[in-house]
Structures are given as structure tokens and as C-alpha cells.
């Protein structure tokens, strides 16, 4: 009898790239729920927009590049990129923000570099950075937490606001938008106010960080821990990033508490947890060696603190990650593990 042949190993785990991506998406769910709870349904509208754009763009580019469309569309990576990008956008941003951002992420940052596995920069963060630089006004108007807003928008009103930028007659723009806590902190600190004065006067600040933000970050932390438990991501990047951000901000806070917020505030603000567990851990653009990952994560933590405290942009995760993406190959090269049987 004749048999089929193949080269060893003949067996394989049941995990595929799709499994990995689906788990990442599942890990995002708690954070998304918290997000919608505090900032309304704008997220859902933008998610729908970004996902559609991402898949259409991916389809077109794969067709142009003559790639196996079915194989690559089902890998789930485009969905992850779309979700991560949307989670960095203001919930009530106009529709073309998420569309252009996604297009840039998929077409330029991903496919033009060679597609899955070949992009040096995190596509979602590249898309975000492009938007922030090109459309600073749209990108910095944030939605007020629903609990603080005098009036709330219905889902239909939200869709209208996103697509045609009109609000119902009885609602003013000021009623539904506010700066983010990190924003306020930065502008007020520049006016030489103390941290204590700022956090006590503005209603946006909760007991640990900004209203809503503390819970959203907590939910992303939860989803992230699940990813570590499921071994989708290793602890190295998130662990070292959070420890480094926490330590540095603790030292600064202890030295000058009136200028520097507490480490807890840093850890539970903006995109800290999302960045630590979902963005910085993007395997394609992070180092692959354990030591490389620790240096990578710790550097991002330090950069986040520096950019938040001294930089021009309110949140820092995107730029910190993009900066570190540039040194990933170098980190990989200099942190190779010692091979079995070679000198210690």
C-alpha cells in the first residue's frame, strides 16, 4: 500500500493565528463594555465603520498583491487593528476619522510593508499617530463621561453626530464634550497649579484617576490578565511596562507631589492598560526574546511618563510604542538567549 508523506513533526497544536487574534479580541471585550458604559455608544458606531473599512481595504490590497485572500482575511489581524485604533479615538469623532485612520493603518502601515508579519510599526498606532498629527482638533475633543454630562445622547443622535456632525437642538456641544483628565492636568499644570488643586476642583477626577478611566483601565487589565493566563501574550512586556511606569512616577511623585500625579493615576489613565496588554504586546512589532521584551516594555513605561509629563501630546502610549518599534530589531539582536551547551 502507498501512503502520503510529509516532513516531521506530523502533529500540530490546534492554535492558529486566528485563534490568537480571536482571543485578543475577546480580551478586549470587558474594556469595551466599560467604555460604552462611561462614554456612550459612539464606540460601537466607530467599530462598525473601522471593521468594514479594514476588511474592504485588506480585501482590495490582498487582491492587488495577489495573495491568498481567504487565508489572510480569516487570520483576524485586521479586526484587531481596527479595534485597537478605535479604542484610541474620541468616541464622538466624525466618521471619516475612523475611516481614514483605518485605511492608513491597513494600507500603508500594514499591507505596503508586506502584510501580516512584515510591518515594522504597530498599524493601529501608526494610524492613530497619523490622525493626531493631521487632525489635532477632532482628535482632542473627548466625550464627557455620561455620569457628568448634563444631557445624554440617544443611539440615533450619536449616529447623527458622528455622520453629519449635528446634535439635537436642545443639546449643546459643550454639554457632551470635555477634555480628558490627562489633558486638563497638562494644561492646568502649565498654569502653575498644583496637582492637588487640579484634581480637587475638576469634576472629571475620581478617587484613583479620571471618572470612567479608572474602570476602563481596570477592565482592560482584567482582559489582559486573561490573555496572559491563556498564554496569548507573555508577561514580559506588560509587566515591565507597568512596573517601570509605576516606579518612575512613584519616584517623581515622592520628590514633588505638587507637580507629579500619583503612580496609580498614571497606571489607570488614558491608554495605559490597553497599551500594556494589547498594543505593546503586538508580536509582530515587539521583540521576540524574553530579555528584549523586558527592555522594550520598561522603555515604553519610561517614555509614557516622560511624554505625559513633558511632551506636547496628552497621552503618550502610541508614540512610546512607535518609538520603541524602531529599536525592536536591535533589541532582538543584542538579547539573544544563551543556547544550550554554549558558554555561560
Amino acid at each position, binding site marked *: *500500500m*502507498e*501512503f*502520503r*508523506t*510529509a*516532513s*516531521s*513533526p*506530523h*502533529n*500540530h*497544536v490546534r*492554535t*492558529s*493565528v486566528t*485563534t*490568537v487574534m480571536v482571543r485578543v479580541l475577546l480580551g478586549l471585550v470587558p474594556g469595551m463594555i466599560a467604555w460604552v458604559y462611561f462614554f456612550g455608544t459612539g464606540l460601537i458606531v466607530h467599530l462598525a465603520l473601522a471593521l468594514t473599512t479594514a476588511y474592504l481595504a485588506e480585501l482590495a490590497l490582498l487582491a492587488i498583491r495577489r495573495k*491568498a485572500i481567504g*487565508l*489572510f482575511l480569516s*487570520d483576524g*489581524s485586521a479586526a484587531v487593528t481596527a479595534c485597537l485604533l478605535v479604542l484610541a479615538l474620541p468616541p464622538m469623532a466624525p466618521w471619516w476619522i475612523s475611516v481614514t485612520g483605518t485605511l492608513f493603518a491597513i494600507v500603508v502601515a500594514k499591507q505596503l510593508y*508586506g*502584510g*501580516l*508579519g*512584515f510591518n515594522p510599526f504597530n498599524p493601529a498606532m501608526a494610524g492613530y499617530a497619523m490622525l493626531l498629527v493631521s487632525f489635532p482638533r477632532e482628535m482632542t475633543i473627548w466625550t464627557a463621561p455620561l455620569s457628568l454630562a448634563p444631557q445624554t445622547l440617544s443611539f440615533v443622535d450619536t449616529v447623527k453626530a458622528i455622520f453629519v456632525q449635528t446634535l439635537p437642538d436642545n443639546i449643546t456641544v459643550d454639554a457632551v464634550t470635555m477634555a480628558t483628565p490627562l489633558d486638563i492636568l497638562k494644561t492646568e499644570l502649565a498654569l502653575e497649579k498644583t496637582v492637588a488643586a487640579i484634581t480637587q476642583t475638576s469634576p472629571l477626577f475620581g478617587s484613583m484617576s479620571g471618572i470612567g478611566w479608572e474602570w476602563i483601565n481596570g477592565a482592560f487589565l482584567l482582559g489582559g490578565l486573561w490573555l496572559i493566563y491563556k498564554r496569548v501574550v*507573555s508577561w514580559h512586556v506588560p509587566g515591565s511596562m507597568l512596573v517601570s511606569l509605576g516606579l518612575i512616577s512613584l519616584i517623581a511623585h515622592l520628590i514633588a507631589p505638587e507637580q507629579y500625579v500619583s503612580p496609580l493615576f498614571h497606571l489607570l489613565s488614558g491608554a495605559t492598560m490597553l497599551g500594556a496588554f494589547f498594543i505593546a504586546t503586538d*508580536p*509582530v512589532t*515587539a521583540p*521576540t*526574546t524574553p530579555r528584549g521584551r523586558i527592555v522594550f516594555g520598561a522603555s515604553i513605561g519610561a517614555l509614557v511618563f516622560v511624554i505625559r509629563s513633558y511632551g506636547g501630546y496628552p497621552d503618550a502610549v502610541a508614540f512610546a510604542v512607535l518609538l520603541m518599534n524602531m529599536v525592536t530589531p536591535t533589541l*532582538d539582536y543584542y538579547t*539573544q*538567549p*544563551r*543556547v*544550550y*551547551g*554554549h558558554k555561560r
Partner: protein
Amino acid sequence: MSTRPLFSFFGGVHPPMHKDVSTGQPIDVMPLAERYILPLHQNIGQPAKPVVSVGERVLKGQRIGHAEGYVSVALHAPTSGTIADIGAYPVPHPSGLSDNCIVMTADGADEWTECVALPDYENINPSHLRNIVREAGIVGLGGAGFPSFIKLNPGTHKKIDTLIMNGIECEPYITCDDMLMRERAAEIVAGIRIIRHALQANRVLIAIEDNKPQAIKSIEEAIRGESAMEVVACPTRYPQGSEKQLVEALTGKEIPSEALPLHVGIVVHNVGTAAAVYRAIMLGEPLTSRIITVTGGGVAQPRNVEARIGTVIEDILAHCGGPTAETRKLIMGGPMMGFALHSDRAPVVKTTNCLLAATAEEIPDRGPALPCIRCGACSDACPARLLPQQLFWYAQAKDLDKIQEYNLFDCIECGCCAYVCPSNIPLVHYYRFAKTEIWAREREKEKAELARQRFDFRQTRLEREKAERAARHKKKRDELHSEEPSAAPATETKKAAILAAMERAKKKKDAPRITPANTEALTPQQQQMIEEVEQRRRQSRPNPEQQSAASNGDK
């Protein structure tokens, strides 16, 4: 009581084991067949040389192949009968090639040749013991097939501290060592005593994975009262049975790259080998049969059989109720490191530990590969602590220097990386390919080197002749000018010219040349691997399945 290992090895995987498929029944002795095919090349090293001729009658256990060269062992008739043919027959090899075999027709008498037992081996010179083991045709029965007598030689300068008996059997499906330990523990332990004596080892560790409680128990009972001999129950993890990983798990020591366990005072033997050594010394029987696991959904009665070396696979499968129509792949060895056979017409050899007749559900075809997403799952699993994703990158880029910088030759081809890769990349396939490319390149270089040496030699000769001519001319001139014959100076000039030419040639030769790491001073195993891959390279183009897997993701 068995102990737990004090150390551990890096990486590894936990594939589903499927061991109980074949452990339900006791070891079953295969009935006598009509025909046996005995490949002359069954071990790492040189093949045996036939010492019988066609038509000759031989007895069971009679030597039919002679050990040729140092890394070689003898080959014996598995039963009594006549030599039907000596020539090329299919052998179990991934290439599906034919190779030199001795074909025997059994006469049904199964008559033994005269066996000389040596029960008082303790009074026998260890070098004589080694010779008997060699003449008995014993090779490592764990699967690698390295001639065992070499590993009974402690060398002159090294003291053997630990003899490790490998009963790990970490590959899925394979249970031949397990069943042997359950049923023939006394033989194994008797063999261990002999090996220990030959090596003068201080202590013996018998390593068994903890998924074989019955084997652990029976070996423990058999070693009761032995001094400095203990069973170590290792937590199950693939590839713990690999020599390097086992040494690391048991002793915390690492075998230096490109060295043998001997360098750290350790020798590792397989438990099946111990049983064979017992038979060779205490009963005088050479290796003519072995235990083989016949398993998988492709056979109706999976179990372990004791089969004579040379039994045609078809016969063994038929004996176990197979292959069924659903059988898609026939794998010799386990699913992690075994190789798929084209057909079942080849015979089993000394290293055949398992025949896995797998259905498509058991061993599905590898799907298309995606590009590497650098997730690092492979490097987390690599027991050699390599960076498989980087090796893959450079293998794809055909950057043969860079891939050696990333220590390609420390890869033991265990398959853990490809097993876990979410992108489904046939990584090991790429590494094998890169290794053969490097070896091919080395051979090219050697050829070039030879040509260069020839050229140098010629150059030396030409220069010498030129110098001689000059000297002759000078002599003639001198003779014209003076009447005195000057033979002596002429020889001097000639000698000097030759010396100078040789000096120049030597300088050229001594100029430093770049040699890649790891390709010098090859061990016999590596040499064997080179030969095998060379054969594969020549013979087999990657089959369609692999090709699609390898080329789908990129380009």
C-alpha cells in the same frame, strides 16, 4: 521509592500522548515469516559488509554482515534459511530509496547457531565485553541507532560518574520501552549491571516519565537491593528523552555544544539496549529481534510486537489488522520526529521503535502556512534555547552565514517549534534544508580546496623546473667561461630553488581560511545525517503538500 528529578530542561511541549492505544495487550511475538529483508545499513556509521553468498544456508543468529570500519556493527540472520539475494531493495527511509540488502528465505526450522554465553562477565576485560556487544550487532534501540559498544568505552582519561538509563519514551504513541519495562524488567536490570560494569560508573539513574507508573513499579522491584541505582520519575514533557535534555533534567549539567555526554562524566543508554546487552552477554544471543509499537487508527489491533529485524512492514501491519482503508500516513517512529514512509514494502530495522498507521483525523495534513508573526511561541518551546523564528527568517533568505551565527547546528530537530507555531510553518523542514545547503556548500569548498592544492603543487613543480633550467643554463655558461666542472653548486641551487618553492606553497596553504562553525570534526551521527540529507536532497523533491505549505505564506 522513585525520586523526582532535581532539575529541569528548558522549553518543550505537551502533545497528546495516545499511549494507551497500544498498551492494552501484552507483547506479542510475531510468527515466523517466509522472507526477511536485511538492509546492510541499519545504524549510524558505516554499513555492514556481507559475509555470505547467495544460496548459502545460514542459521539463526549467524553473522551475515561484518562490521566494516570503527563506527559499525555486525548483522545477523533472524532465522535459519537460505540467502535468496543480495542487492537493492526498498529500505525504510524518508527518501523511499532502495539500498543494499540481504534477502533471506526462512526454512521454518528456526535453528539457532551456537551461542556462547559469558555469565561471569565481571571477570572479563571490559574491552572484550565491548567487542562482544559489537559483534552482537547492538545499536541504540531508542531510535538513533548509534553503535552501543562505542558508548561502553569510557575512554582513558574520563571517569564515568553517572550512567543514565533512558526509559523516558516522550514521543506520543510509542510504548515499546514502556511494555518492555513492564514485562522484562529483570532482563533490563541485568543488562544495566553489565553496562555499569563495563563503564565502572559510580551511580545509575533510570529515568522514566511519570505517565508510566507500571513500568516504574516493575523496574523498582527489579532493582531492589542494588546499590547506587535509582529510578527517577520525570514529569512528562517532550523531548525529555533527547539525550541533551535528559542530562539537563537529571543532573542540571549541559553537554557542551558539539560534545558528547562523556565530557561531563555521563553516559546515556536506552533501556531496550540494556535488554539486548543482557541477551548478548548472558545468553550469547546477537540482536535479531526487537519490540515495535504498532499503533494508530490504521490498525485494528494496535499493540506491541516482538518482531525479527528484517520483517517486512506489510507483514507486521497485517498481523495487527491493518492497514485499513482509512490509513493515510505510515510513520516510522513517533509523530514528532518520525518519518513518513511511502510504502509498507520496506522491512523494519534495528532502530524501528514504532509503526504508526495514522488516519487523516489522527495526523491531518498540514494546512497552508501564514507568515511568521514573531509571536515567540517557538522560542519558548525550543529546548535548545534557539530562536527558531530567526533561523526561519535566515533560512528563507538563504543567508547561510547568518543562520549559523544563530546556531542552526545546535538544533536537534525535535519539532517543538513547528508543533506550536500558530502560523503553521514547517520550520524543521526549513532547517533541514538549510543544513543540507550548508553541507553542500562545504563540499564545494572542499573540492575547490583540492583543486587549489593541485594547482599549488603544479606551480611548485613548474617553479622548480624553471629554477633547474636556470641552474643548467648557468652551469653551461660557467662551463663555457671556466674549465672547472661545478656540479656541486648546481645541486645546491636546485635544492634551494625547491625549498623556496615549497616555502611559498606552504605559506599560501597556511594563510588563514574561513571555515564555518560546526562543520569541522563531525561526529559519526552528523556524518550520517549528512549522508541521509544528501540522499534526500538528491532523491526527493519536497512533496506537494510541503511545497504548498512552504510557499503559500510568502512570495
